[in-house]
């Protein structure tokens, strides 16, 4: 029980003392996850819209699969990326294994279905609203997607933020492809895992609280920049 209190205190201490290691791994966490979220959003948001707009035969199957892929087990993703990037794998020549780039790749694979699926869901109602008008105006599919992306940007932000949340807390995949190498690929979650294994529960918790704080801060900043929950409907 007092580990939790101790963890909170330690978190405060670490933050107040601007612990250099903490800052380093926090920034790396942010960099990896934000990059991954950006890439995943660029793929996932239009994909989600496309799924809302397009009717085709296996639509339901694709959507169910996408939903299921939201839960891609990170360890499996890590493994596959590891195999692909390892020296004996097809992309071994790039020497990406155990670099932040590899971690970003793994996260993109995890986050893209999540972002696509949530944005599909978010955009479905908007498409129902716009459907007749956009069909009547003889828009191309591209224009429909662009319009939905723009007019639904607030809801889509939630999808991206869900991706951010998932990414920043993820450990299974980046542990395998990043290797949790000190001063190279160690991020908050892998550090937490490490300290847990060492039995340093208080420190692990402290890092966890820092991570949660970071996630809340990012969410609050983005919400207030975008004024999502402020103005009535749009």
């Amino acid at each position, binding site marked *: 029980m007092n580990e939790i209190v101790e963890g909170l205190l330690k978190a405060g201490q670490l933050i107040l003392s601007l612990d250099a290691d903490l800052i380093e791994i926090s920034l790396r966490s942010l960099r990896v996850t934000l990059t991954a979220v950006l890439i995943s959003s660029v793929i996932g948001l239009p994909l989600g819209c496309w799924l809302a707009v397009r009717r085709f035969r296996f639509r339901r199957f694709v959507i169910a699969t996408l939903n299921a892929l939201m839960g891609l087990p990170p360890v499996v993703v890590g493994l596959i990326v590891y195999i692909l990037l390892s020296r004996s794998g097809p992309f071994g020549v790039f020497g990406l294994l155990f670099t932040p780039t590899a971690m970003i790749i793994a996260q993109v694979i995890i986050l893209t279905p999540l972002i696509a699926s949530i944005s599909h869901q978010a955009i479905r109602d908007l498409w129902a609203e716009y459907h007749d008008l956009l*069909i009547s105006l003889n828009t191309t599919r591209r224009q429909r997607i662009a319009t939905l992306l723009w007019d639904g940007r607030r809801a889509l932000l939630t999808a991206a933020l869900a991706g951010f949340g998932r990414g920043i807390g993820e450990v299974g995949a980046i542990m395998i492809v990043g290797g949790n190498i000190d001063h190279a690929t160690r991020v908050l979650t892998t550090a937490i895992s490490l300290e847990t294994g060492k039995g340093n529960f208080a420190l692990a918790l402290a890092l966890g609280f820092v991570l949660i704080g970071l996630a809340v801060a990012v969410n609050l900043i983005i919400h207030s920049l975008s004024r999502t929950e402020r103005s009535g*409907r749009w």
Partner: protein
Amino acid sequence: MVDLPILPLTVTDAVVRRRGKVLVGPISAELETDGLTIVMGPNGAGKTTLLRLLHGMERVSKGQLTWRVPEPAARAAQAFVFQTPILMRRSALDNVAYPLLVHGVAKTEARARAAGWLEKVGLADSGSKPAHVLSGGERQKMALARALIREPQIVFLDEPCANLDGRATREFEDLLAETRAEGTRIVMATHDIGQARRLAEDVWFIHHGRIHEAAPAEAFFATPQTPEARAFIQGDIVE
């Protein structure tokens, strides 16, 4: 923008069926290049469905529509004003400018032209309002401007004056006459028999999903051929 004339439209035996029920049809009709057709009929008769069918927005279960030019070109030269205006989550001005943007007009020009149209429909001051705060009548005006801004060859209007006040209705009718004079084919559903009398060149009387009677306006109002049409015209004169 699209210069090829898309009319006439020939409809042969078109049927719209949903949930195993025939909503509209079989319909056979021809829309010539010129004219102003008023579609009338009781609530639930199928007016909206028929207009949507002509506009190519309803999957036909049988029959077909043939425009003078092939589909994509034909689609681009039509416009539709829906019975319940569809509001994009944008300002009124951007709502009206949208069809131009979609057709590649530059943003500043599109907005300038949209502002002109807002003025035409009496919404000069409301351009910057988000569409969803507009009043019922203002929404219909906005939807009208959005449909006409691209100068379609044919426009379908589904009870566009339902929420307009007297003056706005008159202004609408003037605008429609102008549009008609510029060569736009007009097909409009309305419940206002007075308005139908003022505007119609042809009347289609819809009943139970079929064109029960189609006739030149004068003939229709003077001597309706079917008891249903007669009853309908009478029924409306409530006073």
